[in-house]
């Protein structure tokens, strides 16, 4: 079943909570640093079948829309980093991936099922929340509508 987008709060756009983690390449990953870009924040795991299906599409989008202002960010909810690093290298993910934890999950209202993807506009507002498999065509159209340099 494809997931429909929903906002975390209906009443108003919510600012994406800021966080800093070290990514798999050992670099600092700070969400706020991506202000001015559209951020696709994807919570995933190597054991999650639907996650593995959508990751190649996110990698392709990162290539296609990088100069237009898209930044994909992956947060793995695997308990162990080893399989994440293996997949990251084998599938040549072209965007930063960091290990998530319960604290980060709670910051986003609980990551209690995967995949879970947030769409964040250039001002840092959460404009979409996709629990489960998103309709990738609709999501791509939404991203394109938000890009600062289409």
């Amino acid at each position: 079943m494809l997931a429909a987008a929903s906002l975390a709060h209906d009443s108003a756009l919510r600012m994406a909570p800021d966080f800093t983690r070290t990514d798999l390449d050992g670099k600092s990953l700070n969400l706020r640093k991506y202000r001015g870009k559209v951020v696709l924040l994807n919570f995933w795991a190597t054991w999650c079948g639907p996650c593995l299906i959508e990751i190649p599409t996110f990698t392709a989008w990162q290539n296609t829309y990088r100069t237009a202002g898209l930044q994909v960010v992956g947060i793995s909810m695997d308990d162990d980093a080893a399989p994440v690093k293996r997949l990251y290298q084998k599938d040549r993910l072209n965007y930063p991936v960091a290990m998530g934890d319960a604290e980060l999950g709670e910051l986003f209202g609980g990551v209690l099922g995967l995949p879970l993807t947030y769409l964040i506009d250039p001002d840092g507002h959460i404009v979409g929340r996709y629990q489960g498999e998103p309709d990738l065509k609709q999501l791509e159209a939404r991203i394109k509508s938000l890009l600062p340099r289409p």
Partner: protein
Amino acid sequence: MKHTLVKALYPAACAFILLSQPGPVLAQHEPAASIPAADLVQPADLAASLKSASAPKPLILQVGFRKLYAQAHIPGSEFVGAAGEDAGLQLLRERAAKLSKDTAILIYCGCCPWSHCPNIAAAYGALHAMGFTRVKVLYIADNFGDDWVKRGYPVVTGG
């Protein structure tokens, strides 16, 4: 009799469903759909029995992932480990080895949509293979967040 037959045919059903999946197989795990419907428990029913002082309480085991369990889990449930992985399955067997075979056990995961869960059928199969006769499975259609937490059923955090 019918129920016994279903359980006896469980391994063959697993193999059939696994082999008949169309397209690429991303992860080799037993499909949750192979679990007999008679052994499924709906979230609303479990929540009601947890509320009831008189209802018997099964041993509740979470056979999913630590980071999900730490954010929210069913009160009284124990984290065992991801049964879809060898290490988690071994932990489940070690935990179960301490129990009487007629212990009422309820397992749950909720990491992913039911049809994609890598853990639940593996845990169910392992417990049956060990001879447990009173194993039930919490049916979580989409994920623990949507099917349990958002419905207002009780949770605790940590672990």
